[in-house]
């Protein structure tokens, strides 16, 4: 019931965000063939960027002349950042909106357990994220058609997995906020704040070696294209993300079970 309702409610948002993200991927990748042709000139030009900036975008490690290198620098950032914004918006609102709009008084007076409400809403979030990522993956793999040479598909798959893991991590943190707080607007602001702060920390970490330790704090560093392209996602980082997901979801269930619903 609730799952179906959430699926319907969020369908429009999902379609729009999926269309926009897939469109961006397609747009960026459609430039790749002409880029690859003049790879040498382009690389020379990009060399003019200051070194720290190159580091932030992974341009010093990734080879822009290859499909996965170009994808890592130009597209992966969009997937991770824009997708995280979507994940945050979606998950932050999904539980809290019932209390915010006073419909919780209706919903929770029906014969459903709090766990079922939480579970179905969480399932709706995960389904939406899965659909979004499946669409991005499909379009990204389709874009390999732009490349004349063989594409390192395993690296592309790592990018996809990294983006999905990041989205789910961001969503579960936002979902926990949604379960514990009351006002939708402040939750959305807080969730987006976390996303952008986390991204900012990743940028700072790349800019200067002095702040390299921040790489261990920001989830965006965990899924950084340059690192992922070299040796996949670090086992430690995967563990941290899975742990965050698990703890946040468990926390959301536990808290919402005993929450006093505001009248």
């Amino acid at each position, binding site marked *: *019931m609730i799952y179906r*309702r959430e699926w319907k*409610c969020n369908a429009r948002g999902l379609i729009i965000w999926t269309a926009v993200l897939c469109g961006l991927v397609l747009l960026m990748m459609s430039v790749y063939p002409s880029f690859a042709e003049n790879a040498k000139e382009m690389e020379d030009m990009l060399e003019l960027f200051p070194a720290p900036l190159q580091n932030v975008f992974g341009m010093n490690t990734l080879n822009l002349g290859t499909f996965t290198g170009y994808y890592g620098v130009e597209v992966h950032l969009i997937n991770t950042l824009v997708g995280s914004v979507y994940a945050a918006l979606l998950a932050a609102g999904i539980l809290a909106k019932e209390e915010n*709009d*006073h*419909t*919780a*008084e*209706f919903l*929770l*007076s*029906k*014969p*459903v*357990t709090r766990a079922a409400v939480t579970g179905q809403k969480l399932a709706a979030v995960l389904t939406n994220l899965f659909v979004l990522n499946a669409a991005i993956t499909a379009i990204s793999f389709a874009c390999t058609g732009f490349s004349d040479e063989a594409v390192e598909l395993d690296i592309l798959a790592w990018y996809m997995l990294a983006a999905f893991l990041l989205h789910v991590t961001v969503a579960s943190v936002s979902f926990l906020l949604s379960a514990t707080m009351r006002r939708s607007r402040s939750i959305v602001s807080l969730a987006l704040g976390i996303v952008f702060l986390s991204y900012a920390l990743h940028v700072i970490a790349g800019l200067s070696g002095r702040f390299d330790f921040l790489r261990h704090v920001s989830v965006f560093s965990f899924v950084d294209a340059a690192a992922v392209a070299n040796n996949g996602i670090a086992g430690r980082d995967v563990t941290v993300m899975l742990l965050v997901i698990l703890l946040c979801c468990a926390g959301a269930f536990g808290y919402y079970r*005993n929450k*006093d*619903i505001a*009248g």
Partner: protein
Amino acid sequence: MAIVELNRLTKRYGKRRGIEELTFSIEEGEIFGFIGPNGAGKSTTIRLLLNLIHPTAGSAKVFGKDIVRDSRDIRRDTGYLPSEVHYYDDMKVADLLRYSAGFHGKLDENRMRRLAERLDLDLSRKIADLSFGNRKKVGIVQALLHSPRLLILDEPTGGLDPLMQHVFFDLLKEEQNRGTTIFFSSHILSEVQRMCGRVAIIRDGRLVRVDSVSQLVNSNFKTVVLTFATDAKPQPVRETDLSGVIRQDISGNVQTLLFSGNVRDLLDYARQLPIMDIHIGEPSLEEIFMHEYKSDKEGVYSG
């Protein structure tokens, strides 16, 4: 069998007052009034019964089941009309009712249409476009639709015009005839007096008393209206002249007393007055309640 049973049920919200050690029970098939001024704790009590909030201490049972542990089972057979009705703005009335019925099992389309027709509610309208009164009607249908064993109504008549109130009360009577128990919270005494068999009076989160409406109305209290001759001026009654006057009020040449003393003393006293008319009747619940409320408050101040 008791359908609702509160046992020292308590809810505290930090500094804000909730309810304190409420104990009473509601029998199967009765319409039980729950009255008190705004902020007395009526909604808090109801929201505890539905497990929207959790008790601080004490316990309560509905259908013999614990309100926290077996809340879902309880809600399966309960219809709830909140004092402020909020639904999903993107839905149409029929969508909302179908969604609601979906939680209870099968939707009875006929019953939905019949109820909507009685209340003059258009099922095809969008919730967002409805007036306050029409939203309330959606709430009423939503609460009644699955033919619950227990109806919990929190200030149900707010927003309904008199004609609709009449229809609504008829619906409630029909439900009662089917054996439904109704918990009727209100601050409007006349409707409680009209509908309910027994009432619980609550104030500042505490139970003042539980009694049958007739008991409350009959309990020795009389309203006495003395109409004086046009040239006479009513004087306040002094305790030495007549004992048992609880409240008195003079307006023009009409004096109204709330009286609980001996009627013969009253007549002896009245005989000496230049009155043209005397009327002795039963007070309304309103008057008793005012008295109950006032004397309690005085008690608090002096103690």
